[in-house]
């Protein structure tokens, strides 16, 4: 219990500090901070539909954050989840509007498997092999593959074979029998969230209760020791990036079947980058990923409501996000400030005693 409390202390204090600073910013430009935060919270959790919306946005964030956490655990930084996500959406869309003769459940599984496969290959093959055998830095290769993947998607719907005839650049839609069933009626929340939570449990089990997970973590924490212990580091490099991509791909597949239902413009979702932040805030802990993903999803949905109700720009939530991550990283800021305060008070008291009591 004490262990959990200590793990939670930093993110909670960091969030509080950020919320206070955000409130000061809002007040400085003439808004009532309480009203602003009230609108934010009610937008995120105010009623069943809002909760459903928040959890629907959290779903891809959980999956992508989980994948990035695995790559971090193996000492690798998969910065290209955004592209892995989009090529998977593209591939699943293609499978979705072909093969329409299949029974719905089989078609759903096929779409998800293809999405996972493509995401895994996009991260595992080129960046994974280039890192493992040529030492090419994965930060560059995953990012370059990400930009390439997004351009490929744009090509497919703008001038390529997936474009549906018509004025708007978008693909053919996937058939309705592949749509994931909703959990809360009139909301975007589907059983996709259940898939995400199952993935979290599976990843947790693999990471902490199997040899594969153990060796992956050894490679991450000390690659040299891993080599001496006979672990095949190149294999785990490819595996870690590949699994990371598989989860980004699953996020794309779920998003397609749950909400998007087609490949269309709007490739700057930022899920890939928010996923990095989710993994960082969760400190690469699979269950922490769920909490962090819901938190950032709430900031996003709450921010939209905040903008509508109080007119304050929704970008304030990005300022808050940045501050929270900053304070989580710089956790020693609290003891540092306490130390300054003590030094200041002791200096103040000694200066008084040196000068003697001031005449009234």
């Amino acid at each position: 219990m004490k262990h959990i409390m200590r793990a939670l202390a930093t993110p909670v204090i960091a969030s509080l500090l950020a919320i206070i600073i955000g409130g000061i910013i809002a007040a400085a430009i003439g808004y009532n901070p309480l009203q602003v935060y009230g609108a934010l919270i009610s937008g995120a959790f105010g009623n069943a539909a809002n909760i459903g919306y928040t959890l629907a946005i959290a779903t891809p964030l959980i999956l992508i954050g989980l994948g990035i956490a695995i790559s971090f655990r193996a000492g690798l930084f998969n910065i290209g989840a955004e592209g892995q996500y989009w090529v998977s959406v593209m591939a699943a869309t293609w499978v979705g509007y072909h093969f329409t003769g299949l029974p719905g459940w089989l078609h759903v599984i096929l779409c998800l498997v293809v999405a996972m496969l493509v995401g895994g290959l996009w991260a595992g093959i080129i960046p994974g092999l280039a890192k493992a055998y040529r030492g090419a830095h994965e930060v560059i290769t995953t990012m370059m593959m990400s930009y390439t993947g997004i351009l490929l998607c744009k090509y497919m719907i703008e001038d390529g074979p997936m474009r549906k005839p018509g004025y708007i650049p978008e693909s053919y839609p996937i058939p309705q029998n592949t749509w994931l069933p909703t959990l809360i009626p009139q909301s975007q929340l589907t059983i996709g969230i259940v898939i995400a939570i199952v993935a979290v449990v599976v990843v947790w089990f693999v990471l902490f209760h199997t040899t594969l997970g153990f060796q992956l973590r050894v490679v991450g924490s000390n690659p040299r020791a891993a080599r001496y212990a006979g672990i095949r580091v190149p294999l785990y490099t490819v595996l870690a990036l590949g699994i990371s991509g598989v989860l980004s791909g699953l996020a794309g597949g779920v998003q397609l079947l749950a909400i998007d239902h087609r490949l269309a413009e709007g490739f700057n979702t930022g899920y890939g980058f928010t996923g990095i932040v989710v993994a960082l805030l969760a400190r690469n802990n699979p269950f922490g990923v769920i909490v962090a993903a819901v938190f950032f999803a709430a900031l996003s949905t709450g921010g939209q409501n905040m903008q509508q109700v109080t007119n304050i720009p929704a970008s304030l939530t990005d300022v808050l996000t940045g501050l929270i991550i900053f304070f989580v990283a710089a956790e020693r800021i609290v003891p540092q400030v306490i130390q300054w305060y003590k030094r200041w008070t002791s200096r103040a008291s000694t200066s008084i005693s040196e000068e003697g009591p001031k005449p009234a």
Partner: protein
Amino acid sequence: MNILTNAQLWASTLAMAVPLALPAIGGTFSERTGVVNIAMEGIMLMGAFFGVAFSYWTGSAWVGLLCGLIMGGLLSAVFAWAAIRLAADQVVLGMAINIFAAGLTAFLLDTIFGFGGTPPQTPQLPTLSIPVLSSIPFIGAFFTNQSVLVYVMLVIVVLSHWFLFHTRIGLRMRSVGENPLAADTAGLNVWRLRYAGVIIGGVLSALGGVYLSLGILNSFDVNMTNGRGYIALAAMIFGKWTPLGSFAASLLFGFATALGIALQNHGISANLLGMLPYLLTILALAGLVGRSKAPAADGIPYNPQR
């Protein structure tokens, strides 16, 4: 092939390389002293926004430039303090700075200038043609009507190479990035040198941002850096943590981008052509350049009391 002999292509290659080379060299300064810096994107945005804002408020693009650099320097000083003094995880900090800066600049743009964006009468930095050089056939295009910051960048490339590799203080900065304990034992102030590296890097990154907002244009747009800070990160690694290498890598990206734009008029999909710089990088990295090795103490906080 007549595209390649078009001098305009090469001139725009140089112009496209500026907002990559400056933050890439900035990152080099930071990482050579041992602080991993992925915050270039955010620092560029700060420079770009405050450059335009102060240019409009004071009516002078030069004052805008100065204020943009100061704001970039301040933000990187905060980053440096957390990274060096508080020994925070530098990658996490970098992400925090990027998200914070993207949010803050978008927020301020909305609250200060409203939905119309920055005013059109904002002064822009001048363009310049170098008298003799611009009249040389072919190469002349490099030196004709380029933003004044293009020439500043060329000077910075040479100066920073000289500074890092041919001066005593440059050697000292590199030494705290390779072996801070040895540098400390030799009487160097590890923290102070690292602060210097990060803040110089921040000012250079901010200059890259100012180039985008006041050099090419006279306006700021939400997230106008559009991932250049991350591509600069790639250019820095690609250039093996040297100013000249970073510049060469930036030129390669600039060339691929410029080529893509030039080929668009020839009926090839802009989306497919846009992949060129990225695929080229992967190929070069996996095939030609191979292993790039970071400074030995890059990313490891140093505790002098230990």
